[in-house]
């Protein structure tokens, strides 16, 4: 363990936690004896599965299996392939693949919370989601259905599962399309997956400036990443405004610094029960994949959902944030940072409490100066362009657009 933060903020956090606990808040105090995480520890590579013929995109994990999607066109090969990996050992072994007809990009892939379904988003025109049955065969999941409608046609850029009131839904962020004479605006489409073989479209709503890029759903709250329109929170069953997936009601909005709100994760700390922070990925316009990118990770305090406020940020020089995964047991956020590799942040405790030296001119806390960067992976690999990360136990799987799937050892980041 490396001693790092001064005792002041920790003590303050402890006092605050105790004080809030005294107010009957379910948030538990931080364990005084809890081990601190290291600072910027290297996260060693323990495995590497190669995909040389396509650009790899997102990664999803289910038990001993991983699924990586693909993007654009590499050497004449379109991004229409999902590789199935056996990840029982440290070295990922590609055992099979799913070829998705009509797709030029299969940019997003996700597993449902009950492990029953695999969802793949397809772009461009002719956009759809493919639903596969993991319960039947995780090694070669059979297709349940391809869902496509007029609303999804421009292309499904990202697709996320979310359970609301016990019902599983799919949340699809639809590409804009510059058709003539009238362009098609970006939209959020929500599907009721009560019967996965027959998805029912319950919402089509134009949103975003210029588009809705991604969502996060938890406890009946929908978070939408609306690019320059910021981060918007919606009641879809978990708020008090009567919203439903078919009729989301806006709770609040925040314009994070720099805009370009790309993705979001609402963090529930498994130890403390704290639900205070949403982490927002900013994807800066510019850069060249694998060499340069930009955009910070932003920490938004959503304690008051009507008035969310950005309190902290994390910046990697020359690299930009992409997708996240959270180890909520250990309070560690894993973020893909394209050419910046994988970054692990200690997100437990109060991220808004920092010294004057750790604060930016606009008042936000700088997580780097707060020594919240716990680990760095793939920083010595070039070229590398990490699209997505998935965490399980002491391993993180990182999808690299250039080469396939890396496996990182994160055992140093267990508390």
């Amino acid at each position, binding site marked *: 363990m490396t001693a790092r933060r001064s005792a002041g903020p920790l003590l303050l956090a402890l006092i605050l936690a105790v004080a809030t606990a005294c107010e009957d808040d379910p948030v538990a105090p931080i364990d005084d004896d809890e081990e601190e995480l290291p600072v910027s520890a290297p996260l060693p590579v323990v495995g590497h599965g190669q995909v040389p013929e396509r650009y790899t995109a997102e990664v999803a994990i289910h038990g001993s299996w991983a699924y990586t999607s693909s993007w654009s*066109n590499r050497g004449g090969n379109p991004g229409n392939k999902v590789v199935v990996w056996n990840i029982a050992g440290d070295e990922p072994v590609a055992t099979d693949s799913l070829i998705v007809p009509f797709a030029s990009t299969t940019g997003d892939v996700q597993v449902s919370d009950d492990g029953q379904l695999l969802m793949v988003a397809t772009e*461009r025109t002719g956009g759809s989601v493919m639903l596969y049955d993991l319960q039947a065969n995780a090694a070669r999941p059979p297709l349940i259905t391809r869902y496509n409608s007029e609303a999804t046609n421009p292309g499904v850029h990202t697709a996320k599962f979310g359970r609301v009131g016990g019902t599983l839904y799919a949340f699809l962020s639809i590409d804009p399309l510059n058709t003539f004479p009238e362009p098609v605006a970006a939209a959020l489409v929500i599907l009721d997956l009560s019967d996965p073989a027959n998805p029912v479209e319950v919402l089509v709503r134009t949103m975003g400036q210029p*588009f809705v890029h991604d969502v996060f759903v938890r406890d009946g709250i929908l978070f939408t990443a609306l690019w320059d329109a910021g981060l918007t929170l919606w009641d879809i069953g978990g708020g008090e405004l009567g919203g439903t997936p078919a009729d989301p009601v806006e709770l609040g909005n925040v314009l994070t610094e720099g805009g370009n709100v790309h993705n979001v994760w609402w963090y529930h700390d498994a130890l403390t029960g704290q639900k205070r922070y949403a982490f927002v990925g900013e994807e800066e316009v510019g850069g060249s994949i*694998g060499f340069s990118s930009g955009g910070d990770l932003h920490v938004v305090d959503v304690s008051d959902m009507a008035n969310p406020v950005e309190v902290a940020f994390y910046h990697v020089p020359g690299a930009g944030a992409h997708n996240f995964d959270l180890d909520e047991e250990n309070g560690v956020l894993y973020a893909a940072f394209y050419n910046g590799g994988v970054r692990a942040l200690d997100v437990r405790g109060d991220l808004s409490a920092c010294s004057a030296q750790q604060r930016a001119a606009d008042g936000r806390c700088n997580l780097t100066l707060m020594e919240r960067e716990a680990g760095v992976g793939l920083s010595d690999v070039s070229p590398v362009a990490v699209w997505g990360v998935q965490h399980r136990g002491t391993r993180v799987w990182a999808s690299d657009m250039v080469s396939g799937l890396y496996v990182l050892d994160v055992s140093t980041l267990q508390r």
Partner: protein
Amino acid sequence: MAALTLATATTGAAAQNHAHAPPPATPPAGAALHLGASATGLLTRAAPALADRTLTEGYLTQPVLTAAATLAGGRLSATGMLNLEGLTLQRGELTAGIWGEGYVDRRHPHTYLHELVLSGRTPVAGGSASLSVGRGFAPFGTDDPMARPFIKFPLNHHLAQLPERVLASAAWARGPVVAEAGIFTGAEPRSPEDVGGLDGFGRSWAARLTALPRPGLELQVSTARVAADQRIRGIALDHRKYSASARAEVPLAGGSAYGLVEWARTSEHEEGRRVYTFESVLGEAALRRGAWGGALRLERSTRPEEERLSDPFRTPYPHADAHLVGVTRWVVVSGRAEHRRGVGPLRATPFVEASWQTVAELTGSIYDPVEQYGRAEQWHLSVGLTLGAGMRHVRMGRYGAARSSGHEQTP
């Protein structure tokens, strides 16, 4: 005296003999209407076109109807071009390194209404001044490639010209100096049917200064600010453009010689922050003697590499995400030989064009051109026949007082 010219025969000797002279301060008397038409049948072989695959394709390219009119003793003039590529070239034309408007490695079809500009001209301060309105070229950069020696466009088309904009421009010419400035719509067309409209009109501007130090020699510098297209549903960027060129055209015994050297740069900005820069240097020369002509072009240009669609010759327009896959630099060497002849009322020009090109990624990104094309070098070979009748544009991109006497060639 009015004159009407329709599809009159010309001979091969009538080619490119349009030495640039300062525009006259006083327009010629009378009125005239000139019409013309031309089209090119083309066979192109690209080796490799993509992923080590050779493609051979045929096209009817640059099918155009042209018109030029003068009224009121030349104080009023109009120039126009209907371009029918929307009917003949929807999949695009294999062209080395070309990109733009959602196409890559294939040139996109132009809009049906490629140009229709009305100009009023009057003597001012010892020179000639004009106002022009319509749809056409913003006062920026060099002549449209359609009015230059090669049938294949250079890949810097979107860096070195600003065509198909709704515009209002002013020009003033006195002696060897021509100054132009204009405002226009920033949007690029989204379809051959797209005639523009007034959305964003006036948010973009361009200015060009041209010097004509001696007959046949033309020097220009220009700049433009093109505002992001507000119609775009996606990430649209502002463009800052710069161009400088030297153009020469001189008559030779039994023919003519032409040369152009140009530099162009476009930087793309988001809220004032520069995010990408693309640059081009191009030189081309043509020699004509009697019916025979030859041309050589050297180009070194950079272009964006973007996500590709199911059709690998198309890209999303614009991106849903924010990055380029990379930036590549292309070096293209092109040659052309042609023979012009009159066939009844038609001009017939059989030709052959060949290009060799090589491409390199500049940024260190994940994009590998050899992976994309299968080889580090590519060849394109084209044979074709251009048929034309009546007037034709031999210069394109200037209006009113900025036009030389050689912009249209009339029978």
